[in-house]
């Protein structure tokens, strides 16, 4: 394709060429492999003539469906290695992963061990924040049989129904997943309450679990939309293209498997009024405010609390929920659940 600029300058008018050869019109319109814009010059328009079509280039490009199918196959292989949500493991299991690796991680894990006893892993499929958050939150409700909090969050989810529609979601796309979540929550306090083992098997069931993820993605997207002015500057700054709020919601929040960032976490914790602590396990050596750990700065572990801003007019006029309910471990690109001591 790239050489075409130098040839047949007399054939710039595609239309007249095609009109002379009506029998070839259909073939002539057949497409060629996608190439980058840079390879084209204006003169390449003339190249559209039927006699120049070349069989070997037309047949080799895999269709987007094939590319998608291959991606799905890679995901399926990943799925065989890690379940959607794992069992509870001691932190020493995490330390083992890094035994042969960076001492920064090993030291930091020791610091984390001072505050946390265990970890539960989520599959690294881009949905790990949502999966970890929802599982940790619901598991805690189940363990504590925290009915006041249950009542609050069920009311909260019901109130979001209208706001989701306002944010452009059709009722039919979220009503089933919403019911799945509310039904599980409402079983608490009944004769047949949700148990952790059932929660585990529900979250291992791809169909159920993904509907839950899908619902909270929509909720997050709606929450971003409803506070678009607040989020716009962050979203603008996060990407090279300077995405708009609308583009960000469509590309980075609503599609399954898109990784979560600060914006997602702020929006979701705020929407549900559930405070979250994220502990950062990374290579950084700098000491930041809010970190914890001993005098050795290399073992200092940073964390960030996502505390929802309670709207002044909110029905929940009770005390601001300051203590994190959910604790997550962040390693670059991935979230897992942490269990405090």
């Amino acid at each position, binding site marked *: 394709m790239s050489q075409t600029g130098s040839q047949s300058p007399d054939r710039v008018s595609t239309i007249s060429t095609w009109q002379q050869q009506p029998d070839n019109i259909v073939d002539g319109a057949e497409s060629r492999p996608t190439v980058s814009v840079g390879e084209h010059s204006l003169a390449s328009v003339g190249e559209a003539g039927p006699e120049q079509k070349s069989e070997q280039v037309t047949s080799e490009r895999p269709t987007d469906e094939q590319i998608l199918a291959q991606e799905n196959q890679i995901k399926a292989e990943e799925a065989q290695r890690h379940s959607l949500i794992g069992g509870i493991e001691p932190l020493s299991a995490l330390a083992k992963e890094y035994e042969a690796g960076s001492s920064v991680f090993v030291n930091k894990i020791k610091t984390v061990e001072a505050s946390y006893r265990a970890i539960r892993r989520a599959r690294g499929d881009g949905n790990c924040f949502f999966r970890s958050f929802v599982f940790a939150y619901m598991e805690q409700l189940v363990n504590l049989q925290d009915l006041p909090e249950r009542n609050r969050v069920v009311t909260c989810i019901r109130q979001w129904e209208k706001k989701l529609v306002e944010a452009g979601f059709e009722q039919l796309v979220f009503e089933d997943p919403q019911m799945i979540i509310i039904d599980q929550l409402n079983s608490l306090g009944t004769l047949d309450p949700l148990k952790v083992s059932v929660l585990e098997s529900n979250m291992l069931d791809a169909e159920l679990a993904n509907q839950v993820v899908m619902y909270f993605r929509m909720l997050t*997207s709606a929450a971003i939309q409803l506070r678009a002015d607040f989020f716009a500057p962050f979203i603008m700054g996060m990407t090279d293209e300077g995405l708009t709020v609308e583009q960000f919601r469509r590309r980075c929040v609503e599609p399954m498997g898109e990784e979560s960032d600060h914006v997602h976490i702020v929006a979701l914790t705020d929407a549900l009024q559930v405070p979250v602590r994220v502990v950062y396990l990374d290579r950084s050596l700098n000491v930041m405010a809010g970190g914890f750990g001993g005098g050795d700065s290399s073992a200092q572990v940073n964390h960030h609390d996502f505390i929802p801003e309670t709207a002044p007019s909110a029905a929940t006029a009770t005390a601001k929920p300051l203590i994190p309910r959910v604790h997550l471990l962040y390693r670059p690109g991935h979230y897992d659940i942490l269990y405090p001591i």
Partner: protein
Amino acid sequence: MTAKTRVMKEYKEISRSQADEAIELLPDERNILLWKGLIKGPQESPYEGHIFELGIKVPDSYPLAPPAVHFVTKIFHPNVHFKTGEICLDILKTSWSPAWTLQAVCRAVLALLSAPAPDSPLNCDAGNLLRAQDMRGYSSMARMYATRLAAMPQGSSIVEQPHPSSLNTFKEDH
């Protein structure tokens, strides 16, 4: 199971409202996961006055995975493969989200007909014409294929109706 439940919901919603007169969605009589979509070429596009058929296949993993949509009617458009009818549209691929419905997908395809994206063409001939700013060439090719290969709406009102605002790029070749 979820795919069928969800599609049934969409079917009911479509039969209830049929809100968009430019789109007609018809499920296969024997298989609710196979649909035919009929879309009316948008006003002020070279496809105006013609009806294009889309083949829609809903996978079992729908709505987590997108439906497979292709043009059954041949169409000359930079983002549609001329032979296979494959559509290059982000929401049918990587940007798919379960928040989309079949109706919303058809709306997105209509938007693509109105606003082709020539920088990532599946049909390079159409893409090259547009990239060369040859609106006249692109429009007449697109219109010629539409006339030859697409259906005309029966008793339609949109065929002869000129749109009030006439300052647009497609008008210059009239």
